[in-house]
């Protein structure tokens, strides 16, 4: 430390006004008052108090001016508001007035970013600040617009349902709705995208207009994917998201960006084209059975195909598309390339949200439409998922590119998510959905943090670093927290999901995972050791040891813009880790519903001699009682009471 203090202006620490004990006592009093408020007066005041407290207590070197201070305060306030509002039993405090569910909300949620992206096209290329400001504002508006989704108690039903014929002759509808599962993925999207965009504004300086256009279009497509209940609509959004990401990697990526972009595009495209064929076949079958074509999820759910032949093929076409997107072993190799070459914000969005399209798609469509096939191949695929966990972890250990390490760690993490889905117990599915959000938070934060040093040093090679903890203490602290979250340290977010998935795997009944489930659970737990191995090796090589490389001596600690971007993610790691019930309570009933529908179909068609669950002719089942009430016509009043609430 002595050596380094000679390079810096003497007495940096003394120059800043030290915090006095008085201030600390003040802060403690303040915390006491806040706690008392929460306990006895009204929890509603707490966010304001916390916001003010954080804004006041923020160390000066992190928040150099009032604007940054205010932003930190605002963020703390919003997060507190989230905790207070979602706290179990908080409804009683809020009051009993039934929230009005707007049927057009989801349409706006999809339309806003898309419209904004079109608006960006008409803005002057010469004023990047204007475009960036507009983009960010649109994203914040989107985030604000998505918050009313939390005002409804999700329960088992679908909410904010809107169903309008789109291509009436083919039975294609604009059918969007959210339930407890998609709710969190929509919120994850609207939350991560502005954070990533904000972080990118410092590092993306070329073709800003195109960048903002791509970001906004991508956000619209991702939200659309998570809310679509019409399979064709889902497919459209699923594919639409591909294009901006392809451009983002191809234009703003690293040295091998073209190859990575093409690989990314071809891999995902291959799967989704098969899915399109399967979608068409399903729609055609529905028309055969009922006389009218339909691509609505709830209509297609009624089509019972024999597991011995056609269902397996359709299921495979759907699932392959999702497995490639997740990505599961062995179709994962596009991911490390894409992550490595993508710009920081691209990696963040890709890891945090786009991969979830695959896991979400499997949960919603593969398990919803073809439960028998899922049950038939679930045990085998669970083995593949566990293999992926170990494989991804060991590959991550041997990489020497920081982003590649994190990319392979994603393969391992998403192995857990898929394992939880294959286990198909209510709690393991909850764990999987939670883990989707968790992976978004932790891996998003890790990629963003890697971006901080990449912007300064323009290298991602582990060996180019070493001992930089000395130069970047705060950055190191944040990186270690994110690492621990990724490793699954209990108390942080990663553990909760992993624990629920692993217990779910072991306790999963004989009908779901086969006799090897004990082994699968054990190896999944073994992955926890390997996670520590590769992440801590990375941390040790990059941050600890002597500072050898002279180029690193000029490194500056994380600045307030970067901190502002990563702080909410770090805060969420603690919030989700300590209070996972905030999220779990909303998704609990939805997961239970999905599991019930799944188990019902399997029990109705127990496996025969050839291990096929259903060998009879194609037939039409009764409509699921959980489907939302018939959709609103385009001219229906949006003031109608919340529908579809069946419990």
């Amino acid at each position: 430390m002595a050596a380094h203090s000679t390079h810096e202006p003497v007495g940096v620490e003394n120059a800043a006004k030290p915090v006095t004990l008085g201030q600390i006592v003040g802060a403690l009093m303040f915390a006491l008052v806040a706690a008392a408020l929460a306990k006895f007066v009204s929890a509603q005041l707490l966010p304001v108090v916390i916001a003010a407290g954080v804004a006041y207590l923020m160390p000066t070197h992190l928040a150099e001016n009032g604007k940054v201070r205010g932003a930190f305060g605002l963020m703390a306030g919003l997060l507190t508001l989230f905790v207070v509002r979602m706290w179990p039993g908080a409804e009683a405090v809020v009051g009993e007035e039934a929230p009005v569910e707007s049927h057009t909300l989801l349409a706006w949620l999809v339309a806003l970013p898309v419209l904004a992206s079109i608006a960006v096209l008409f803005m002057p290329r010469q004023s990047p600040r204007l475009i960036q400001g507009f983009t960010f504002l649109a994203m914040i508006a989107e985030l604000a617009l998505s918050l009313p989704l939390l005002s409804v108690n999700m329960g088992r039903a679908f909410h904010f349902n809107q169903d309008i014929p789109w291509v009436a002759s083919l039975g294609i509808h604009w059918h969007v709705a959210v339930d407890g599962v998609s709710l969190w993925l929509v919120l994850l999207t609207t939350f991560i995208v502005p954070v990533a965009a904000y972080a990118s504004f410092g590092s993306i300086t070329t073709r800003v207009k195109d960048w903002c256009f791509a970001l906004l279009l991508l956000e619209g497509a991702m939200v659309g994917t998570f809310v679509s209940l019409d399979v064709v609509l889902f497919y459209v959004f699923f594919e639409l998201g591909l294009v901006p990401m392809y451009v983002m990697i191809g234009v703003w990526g690293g040295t091998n960006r073209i190859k990575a972009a093409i690989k990314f595009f071809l891999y995902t495209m291959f799967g989704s084209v098969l899915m399109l064929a399967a979608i068409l076949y399903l729609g055609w079958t529905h028309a055969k059975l009922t006389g009218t074509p339909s691509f609505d999820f709830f209509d297609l759910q009624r089509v019972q195909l024999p597991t011995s032949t056609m269902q397996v093929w359709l299921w495979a076409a759907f699932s392959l598309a999702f497995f490639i997107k997740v990505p599961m072993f062995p179709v994962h190799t596009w991911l490390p390339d894409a992550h490595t070459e993508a710009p920081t914000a691209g990696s963040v969005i890709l890891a945090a949200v786009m991969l979830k399209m695959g896991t979400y798609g499997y949960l919603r469509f593969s398990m919803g439409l073809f439960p028998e096939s899922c049950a038939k191949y679930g045990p085998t695929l669970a083995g593949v998922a566990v293999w992926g966990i170990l494989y991804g972890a060991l590959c991550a250990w041997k990489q020497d590119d920081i982003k590649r390490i994190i990319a392979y760690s994603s393969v391992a993490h998403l192995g857990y998510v898929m394992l939880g889905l294959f286990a198909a117990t209510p709690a393991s599915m909850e764990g999987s959905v939670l883990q989707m959000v968790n992976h978004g938070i932790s891996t998003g934060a890790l990629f963003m943090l890697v971006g901080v040093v990449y912007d300064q040093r323009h290298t991602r090679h582990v060996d180019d670093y070493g001992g930089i903890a000395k130069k970047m203490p705060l950055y190191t602290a944040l990186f270690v927290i994110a690492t621990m979250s990724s490793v699954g340290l209990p108390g942080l977010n990663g553990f909760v999901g992993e624990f629920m998935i692993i217990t779910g795997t072991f306790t999963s009944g004989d009908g779901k995972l086969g006799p090897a489930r004990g082994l699968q659970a054990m190896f999944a737990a073994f992955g926890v050791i390997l996670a520590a191995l590769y992440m801590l090796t990375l941390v040790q090589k990059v941050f600890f040891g002597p500072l050898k490389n002279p180029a690193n001596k000029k490194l500056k600690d994380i600045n307030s813009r970067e901190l502002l971007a990563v702080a909410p993610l770090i805060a969420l790691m603690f919030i989700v880790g300590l209070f996972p019930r905030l999220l779990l309570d909303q998704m609990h009933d939805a997961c239970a519903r999905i599991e019930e529908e799944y188990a019902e179909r399997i029990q109705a068609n127990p496996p025969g001699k050839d291990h096929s669950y259903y060998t009879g002719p194609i037939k039409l089942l009764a409509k699921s009682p959980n489907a939302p009430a018939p959709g609103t016509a385009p001219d229906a009043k949006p003031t109608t009471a919340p529908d579809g609430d069946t419990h």
Partner: protein
Amino acid sequence: MNAFYSLFSAEEFSPLAIVLGMPLLGAFVNGVWGKRLGKEAVKTMALSAMAISFFAALFTFAALNHHVDSSAVEKVVEGHKVVEHEHVKLSWLAWEWMRASGAGGLSAIPIQAKFSVDALSGIMMLVITGIGFLIHLYASNYMETDKGYWRFFAYLNLFVFSMLILVLGDNLPLLFVGWEGVGLCSYLLIGFWYDKLPNAAAGKKAFIANRVGDFGLICAMFLIAHYCGALDWTGIEAGAKSLLSPDMVHVWPFGNAHYDGVFGFLQPKVPLMMTGATAVCACLLLGATGKSAQMPLYVWLPDAMAGPTPVSALIHAATMVTAGIYLICRLNFVFVLAPGVMAVIAGVGAFTALFAATIALVQNDLKKVLAYSTVSQLGFMFLGVGSGSFTAGFFHVLTHAFFKACLFLAAGSVIHAMHARVHDDEKSQDMRMMGGLKKYMPLTYGTFGAATLAIIGFPLTSGFFSKDEILFRSFSNSYQWVDKARAESLKMWMPPAYLGKIYYVMGVLAATLTAFYMCRAFFLTFYGDFKGWKIGKPVAAEGHDEDDHDDHGDDHHHDDLTIPGAAPHESPRPMTIPLIILAALAVFGGLLNPGLAKSLFHLESIPLEHWLEPVFATSMAKGIHEVEHNLSMELMCTAGAFSAFAIGSGLAYWTYIVNNGAPAKQWAAAAPGLHKMLMAKWMVDELYDATAISMVDGLADTFVGADKIVVDGILAQVTSFLAAAFGTAFRAVQNGMVHVYAAAMVVGVAGFSWFFAMPHAEGMIVDKGNGDFIVAAAPGFGYEYKFDDAQKFGATSEKPVHLDLPAADKSDKAKATAPVTKNVVLTVKNVFGIQDTKTFVLVRTPAKDKQMIGQN
């Protein structure tokens, strides 16, 4: 006072929040603002947090005592008055945490953030906060010149918080939070001086070795969730019976699967199985060996000495490493169900005690000696709990916390004094550089001596009583079935009784070695002549700035130790006061549980045993057979323990004081191979490197290679090659010559014509479920259809068919469930008059029919 205690009910005992909250607050304040707070404020924050926490813990303990007393019931057993207590628990629910899948995946187990304190965790809580406070006080001076002062106290407070969660958590996942939390703090504190690579590597090694143990704990958790359907202590105890259910864990073949095929010969006729209890206990044991540094996962602890000495005292001696023993004591009712694992625990303990003691014999680094001694003493604790004497094992946790913390702090005091002149970390801890410090550091000498007496088992000191009790119990205890009928039906293995005798002998041997190496360390450090540097008047120009000793960078000048310097000095008061308190506890702490005195003087009860009785009562009564009132056997065992002390320390005295170390050199020369092995710590690290680590390493290399060549190669390279190959092939056809195109067209037109000219009888069956079927023929150009034996072809492409079930005939069940079938023949004719025929088989199954009606 009683009214004061009853302010808080046992179910909602919120003072626990203060015990837990204060260290967290200290960690938070110091961690966030510490850098700008200044040393005084950091110290005030950390120490006051610990002090308040300690007082709150004292209050909690007093309240617990009050609740215990009020639950007391007097009974008369065999003419003696016996006071019996209930197992009292004070708990506090913070919030609902999450849920996990229960048995069969159907039930959900709620997991709460709930904390509770009972007799067992109460003592741990006092040790953690009490000794924690003393060590904080010590460290406030020891670390004074370090730049990372604030960071150090933030980590240390965080550690105390995690450790408290570990002992106070009311369920296994919450314990796991603390379990990993202390691992994290240990990682951060071992690598505290992170700019030195070995320190950072040692931290990583500790974390990963611990993670191997944590893997066991995770496995134990899902097994318990599956068998007991609960994860909190009360629930596990209630559901522990089902751990012995016939639903056993199939070790081989996995999960009772049945394999045919090539590897069928690997499948035994009778599957290899173990009970749920054995599986759970084995997993827990793996977890405990990781945290408590036992074979085979002990290797991280000696390396962990790279951290600052107060850390070694607090984390790697007094508290964290005893977590494994705490876990076994906590779940004693599970462990007694698996006597086989209990015997393994005792065996692991005895072996580790002996093994680590042999390594400690030859180490020259003072802290390394203490580290191996800690491993060895933890082995004694395992021996105790494994023999079924949970009280004895836990008592050793307590006394070990006193004397080992004292030893480490005294060693720190010595190192602090050495470090004033010797800046090399390794040299300043090397006992060959010390000697004769008795004269310069009397307080340190006295306290180190007192603690040494305790650890070598000098009669009437704390270590004497606790070690004696462990050895006696391992000799005399035997296991018995908790549920004999069931255990026999499951064909469980009962460890033979002679194992205890073997363990006893190993224990006595280890105790002898302990006495020898501790006395050796004591004599080498404090007796003889000082060998560090020449003592004399310091030369002003060469005098080293004493405040600079935090600077471990490689930039400072080489120390010339031949230049005379000031004599080593005694440490200041904040460091010696904790030493004195701990030394007093080390000497007199044995009075808490003088097992020998109980038998000698026929005492009705001794404090600790009496206090812990409700915790272990049930499992001790059912699972362990204890020898009662056998004074002669106890005296014989004590004689063994005493002679271990006498021989070991006497030999050390003869070697190092009388003969000034000469015999030690002769022995080393007499058996150079053995000496080399001992110096190299039996090459265990190298063994692990060569086996487990290189295996994982090789596997990872293979995977990386396969990822590049096989996975990516086949999926990406081969497909792209195929696409390119087809492209090349087709390009050859697209050669631009009109006559080639025309020829291709002719072939194509002919093919299509043939297809359209021939009719195709295709169709599908629609099953309405109630016996109505529709056979729908596929359409085609100018098709006419004929079904079955109809006379004419018609335009209708569908034919409805109804299949009736036979009239219900109750006498003939087979007939009632037999499927009804019917064949429908479809004939298709096209405009050219060519015909094609296909037969469809309609099947109606009565059983399925009913199901479908039920669904609709």
